[in-house]
């Protein structure tokens, strides 16, 4: 037989006369999977922007964060999956209070981010290169961009602290 469980009264703070208990902070997080198709980049962008705005970032910064995630997902589609449209890209978007974190996870080929050349704009123009800007843009927008291989999956982790400037 089930017995009713007594509910515990919320613990009152001793600080200040009649102070209300501090509400337990629950931050938003979201996990979603999309097919490895560039037609879903618009969805990725909209969701990231909304999550960033709800985490407290300005519309302008939220736009830039959405762009960084667009770039990360594009990299996965083009480099880890080599353009295959039938794979899965997982996104984990999380407001961690002091920072906003997005992980982009794929099960494609291992990509060595150290192989990405540093961007030298005049050289890019003279060599008519059109790639490699994505990682550079991500690094300019985010506070940290890290890549790791975990359980045969690639994880690109993008972090933006809430107290940092919009871009570096």
């Amino acid at each position, binding site marked *: 037989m089930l017995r009713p469980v007594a509910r515990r009264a919320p613990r009152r703070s001793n600080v200040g006369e009649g102070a209300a208990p501090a509400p337990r902070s629950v931050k938003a997080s979201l996990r979603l999977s999309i097919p490895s198709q560039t037609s879903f980049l618009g969805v990725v962008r909209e969701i990231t922007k909304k999550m960033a705005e709800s985490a407290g970032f300005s519309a302008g910064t939220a736009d830039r964060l959405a762009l960084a995630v667009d770039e990360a997902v594009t990299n996965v589609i083009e480099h880890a999956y080599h353009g295959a449209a039938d794979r899965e890209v997982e996104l984990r978007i999380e407001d961690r209070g002091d920072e906003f974190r997005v992980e982009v996870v794929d099960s494609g080929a291992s990509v060595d981010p150290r192989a990405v050349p540093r961007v030298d704009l005049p050289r890019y*123009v003279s060599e008519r290169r*059109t790639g490699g800007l994505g990682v550079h843009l991500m690094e*300019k927008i985010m506070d940290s961009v890290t890549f790791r291989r975990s359980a045969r999956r690639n994880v690109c982790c993008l972090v933006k602290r809430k107290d940092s400037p919009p*871009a570096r």
Partner: protein
Amino acid sequence: METRDVEGVTLLYPRGFINAHTVRQFEGEIQKALAQGHFKIVVSCSGLAYIASAGLGALMGAIEEIRGNGGDLRLANLNETVRNIFEILGFNHLYRIYPSEVEAITSFRSAGAAGC
């Protein structure tokens, strides 16, 4: 994508966003202008919400051929987001950017007119 010619200048009007999904069309319009011998190009961005690196790569991939033929690719009407992306990457030093389409078009009349 809407395009038109004014005073010998080809105007391109990208709409929405240019990223890996939409960049082929944007590249195609630039290449179409070049194939027709049009090397004075203004990308008017009033309808452009944002541009990802794929779009910036398309601009970079064409600029040498355009300038090599005595022309230029200039930009106008950038919203704050797009302007900011240009500045983050230093593209504002590679391309002339004008507040309005008219200023971008007329800049081709006087060689060396400065953008902003």
